[in-house]
């Protein structure tokens, strides 16, 4: 007689979920991560420096004090952060952005102590942190590169040969470079030798690595980036592009989506290629690929940021997806609940970064006490911030105090809402960059898209 197999009374096994998560960052991003934790029923534990530990946004929260105010002894102290996570019984660490977010050593240290690091696997992070291997991986996956050398340059003669091929002007860059160091421009064949030697010497002094590579210098152009989200099972989606061309000293000021200048064909081609490239390198979590839009309208790959970005809210507003919650779910082993077809892009979104700097005094940073703070509200207005009336901005960290994100059915409506929101934002006690943002948003050049990464439309007035 056939025996009946009893059905299991238990539902199918669900992937695990973190109960406690350490936020290894501060300020606005810490608040943002905590919001996603609250939505998922996770207890966030804030790792804070002594300068931040008493802030009002940490009241009634679990806070663990890492060390003194300076970042090297608190937010950059890997051992203290991992010890803090273990001591507070956290099983996951969210690094936010900046500080240790793109540090493969920190990611590996977390994994070694049984903590889930919310980012890609350390090997992928290491690959994308190196310039020429990242270029080669992306080219193999079908993205268009800025024309340049295939790898490390052997000698001045090698550099001259490559430069003659790709065309002048060219940029010699350090393989381990960053922060604008170890970079030299050569505008003709005569300048190659001097540029090569200067860049090599600077790279050796700054990074103890004098390997160089070469790219054609694209002057101006628009800075466009693509938001990627991937799970551990090879599923990758993109959340559209963001145009971040308005910058000052390589610091982004305003970001918007969709890009008002990108052609539909080029957008579609690069979005597909970017998702395929992320899949090919085994990417996991949220990441961003940065491109330069050249004068022919071609998007050329620059680099990949293996973390959540400050301007992720722009993509969230257009798609309605909570990127931080997705990041946590993916890290806990869940599959992406979204398919590319299910993601819809609505209207236009724009973000302004409000810094505590005085635009009338050459952007002098202004730490101090905010005596009165009131954030605007209304349809299509989102404000991400950690400040409040009475908040003291510490001098140890960067000057971002708030992000205002507005959305509308088209660019004109989103911009109009932004101008309205910025006019109604009250911040007394410290100067902010709001007057500069208003000047930009009202300028005819901004409306007509007549700018690139070199110039700020409408500023200086």
């Amino acid at each position, binding site marked *: 007689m056939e025996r009946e197999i009893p059905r299991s009374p238990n539902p199918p096994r669900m992937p695990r979920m973190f109960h406690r998560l350490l936020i290894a960052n501060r300020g606005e991003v810490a608040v943002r991560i905590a919001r996603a934790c609250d939505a998922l029923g996770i207890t966030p534990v804030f790792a804070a420096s*002594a300068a931040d*530990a008493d802030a009002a946004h940490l009241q009634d929260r679990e806070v*663990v*004090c*890492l*060390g*003194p*105010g*300076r970042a090297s002894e*608190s937010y950059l102290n890997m*051992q*203290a952060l*991992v*010890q*803090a996570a*273990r*001591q507070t019984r956290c099983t996951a660490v969210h690094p936010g952005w900046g500080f240790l977010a793109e540090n493969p050593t920190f990611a590996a240290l977390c994994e070694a*102590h049984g903590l889930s690091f919310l980012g890609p696997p350390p090997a992928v992070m290491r690959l994308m942190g190196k310039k020429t291997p990242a270029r080669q991986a992306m080219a193999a996956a079908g993205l268009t590169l800025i024309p340049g050398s295939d790898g490390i340059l052997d000698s001045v003669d090698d550099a001259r040969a490559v430069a003659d091929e790709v065309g002048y002007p060219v940029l010699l860059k350090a393989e381990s470079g960053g922060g604008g160091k170890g970079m030299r421009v050569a505008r003709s064949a005569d300048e190659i030798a001097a540029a090569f030697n200067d860049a090599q010497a600077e790279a050796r002094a700054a990074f103890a690595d004098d390997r160089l590579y070469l790219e054609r210098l694209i002057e101006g152009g628009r800075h466009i980036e693509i938001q990627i989200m991937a799970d551990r099972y090879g599923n990758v989606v993109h959340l559209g592009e963001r145009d971040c061309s308005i910058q000052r000293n390589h610091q982004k000021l305003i970001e918007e989506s969709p890009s008002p200048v990108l052609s539909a064909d080029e957008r579609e081609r690069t979005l597909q290629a970017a998702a395929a490239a992320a899949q090919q390198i085994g990417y996991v979590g949220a990441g961003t690929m940065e491109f330069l839009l050249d004068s022919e309208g071609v998007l050329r790959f620059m680099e990949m940021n293996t973390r959540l970005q400050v301007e992720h809210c722009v993509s969230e507003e257009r798609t309605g997806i909570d990127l931080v919650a997705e990041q946590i779910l993916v890290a806990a082993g869940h599959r992406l609940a979204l398919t590319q077809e299910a993601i819809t892009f609505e209207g236009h979104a724009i973000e302004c970064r409000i810094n*505590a700097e005085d635009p009338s005094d050459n952007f*002098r*940073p*202004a*730490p*101090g006490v905010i005596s009165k703070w009131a954030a605007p509200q209304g349809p299509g207005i989102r404000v991400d911030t950690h400040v409040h009336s009475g908040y003291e901005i*510490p*001098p*140890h*960290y*960067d*000057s971002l105090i708030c992000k205002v994100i507005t959305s509308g059915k088209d660019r004109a409506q989103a911009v109009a809402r932004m101008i309205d929101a910025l006019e109604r934002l009250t911040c007394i006690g410290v100067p902010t960059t709001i007057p500069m943002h208003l000047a930009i948003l009202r300028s005819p050049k901004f409306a007509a898209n007549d700018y690139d990464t070199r110039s700020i439309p409408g500023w200086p007035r």
Partner: protein
Amino acid sequence: MQLTSRRKTLKPKFTRDDQGNLCLLAPALGLWRDRPSLGTPVMPGMSLGCIEVLGVLHDVVVPEKVAGVCSAVGEGLDPDAARIPLTFGTPMLVIDPKAGNLGGEVQQAHEDNQTTGAGLCAPSSGRFYRRAAPHKPFFIEVGQEVREGQVVGLLEIMKTFHRITFTGPGLPSPARVVAIEVEDGDDVRAGDVLVRVEPV
């Protein structure tokens, strides 16, 4: 060998409560083990056990100007735990300086260090540097003459560096540096006196 080479010696900072007791503050986050038992007399330089951070033991020693008898562990800490979890800056140990007749009277710290003269104040909070780079000479030294507009130091505010020049109402020029009130790399608040000078 490797383990010992990574060990650091930590000296806790301390505060004073109403009864005159000294309260040592945790110098690092970690697990505190081998703490002295209550009633133990302590002197500067003596061991207070160690703080374990990811398996590495860092020694904790009694700071200068602290002597007395351990009277209690910090509030909220479990005195019976073999390894007491600490976070930075929490009170870890209360020391009674009057008990035990050690004769090690606690000296007043810098409070009575009164220097006169006009002062150049920090224009903003930030980190003060006395030189442009670690291998460069100091901008100014005590006893040196300074003139209006001369650079006396750098202030790092929110990751950007600003020159601090010798200018301000009520400052004599030329002047002689009497004292430099902050160390190289110290955090300062707006209005803190950086340099004291007297007219030449």
